[in-house]
């Protein structure tokens, strides 16, 4: 369990983009594209804001119908998956807090009917791996590139 541990998006290797109903992440180091909807999108958005697992679970309870214990277990398992994919990394407790990582999670619209909680699913795509990894023009170091052959 990761109750009070904070995590953060593994930037700059991972870029996260939010849409109305989806969160998309690309790991620029591996070229892997991830898509999240529903509870997964809520969790990743909360992680990006620096929320703890407890805060994330509370946020899910406000937006979804389901057992808090099941949500907590799902969040923990999902974070483990995000760690394995190197999408998130633990936050160093001694590091200064980043301005945008205030740990707050939007309360959500109280008028909206809560959806049934489903275990978050991390959809992973590698069909564009080559294109996301591609950056030949900028793969130049300070010493210049390419080097002339001997």
């Amino acid at each position, binding site marked *: 369990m990761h109750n009070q541990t904070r995590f953060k998006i593994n930037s*700059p290797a991972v*870029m996260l*983009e939010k*849409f109305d109903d*989806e969160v*998309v992440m*690309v790991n*620029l180091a591996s070229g892997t*594209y991830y*898509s999240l909807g529903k509870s997964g999108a809520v969790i990743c958005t909360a992680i990006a804001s620096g929320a703890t697992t407890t805060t994330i679970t509370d946020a899910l309870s406000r937006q979804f119908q389901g057992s808090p214990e099941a949500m907590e277990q799902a969040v923990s398992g999902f974070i483990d998956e995000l760690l394995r994919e190197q999408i998130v990394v633990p936050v160093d407790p001694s590091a200064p807090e980043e301005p945008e990582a205030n740990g707050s999670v939007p309360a959500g619209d109280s008028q909206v009917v809560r959806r049934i909680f489903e275990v978050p699913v991390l959809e992973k795509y590698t069909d*564009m791996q*080559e*294109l996301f990894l*591609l*950056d*030949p*023009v*900028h*793969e*130049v*170091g300070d010493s*210049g*590139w*390419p*080097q*002339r*052959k*001997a």
Partner: protein
Amino acid sequence: MKCSICLATYNKPGHLARVLESIFRQHPPFAFEVIVSDDGGDPETPRVCRQYPVVYHSMQRVDGRYRNPARARNASYRLARGEVVICQSDDVVHTRPDTIERLVGDLEPGAFLIATVINTDEDGQPCCAPDGDGCGDKLTVYTSPAQPRPLFFLGSLWRSDLYAAGGNDEEFEGPCREDVWFGLCLTKGLGLAPRYSDRIVGHHLRHPHCTDHAAIQESQRLFIRKVANARTGRGLYQASGGPWPWNEPETATTGTPETIGHPAIPAGGSQTPRSVPQ
């Protein structure tokens, strides 16, 4: 007009001169034109272009912002009159006397053609990658059948397909991902098949790289958003401006192109260029 060779250039007059030299040495059996869209402020660029029979267009940047390579390329594409458009960078030299002929002749309907492009040093000598074993056998290859990337360092496509894609997406305001997005618009948007040729070879001349990391990151973000929207149906694999009408080419809106010499090179006879100033 069978072929238009279109390129945008940004402050690389030395490289551009070598590229134009390599183009005008050729004698394909059809008429072709060369259109150069100048997106930089180096005064040497128009002087270099005046040595060759090109259509020269200067991009007018009203607010002096960083270059927009997509807009510059589109300016040249909109001026094109050829049935086939050869799209290339301003730093890729044609290595064979039949490069233009092959880029046109090998192009199939329903496809676009990407040449093998090898990175070279300033002497035009192929170089090994920095993490190679020093044997000199490992070349830095940008595109090839073994490195199939839909990037137009040097390639060709039907002008009708280029216009259907809407050219390059001008929402990309700096260099980075606009070329990759263009490739996706052709493959996933129009269903075109990329063909990678080892019969056609270009040499990319090394140059300083872009160091505007903020611009690069912004380009990355935009690319991810466009891909995400297209994959889910919220958007299309298409340039943001939509397809261009298929009609007579427009006069560029950012300035009247300057026609130098005789822009249409007749079949089988390229104009002998004046000597390039050192």
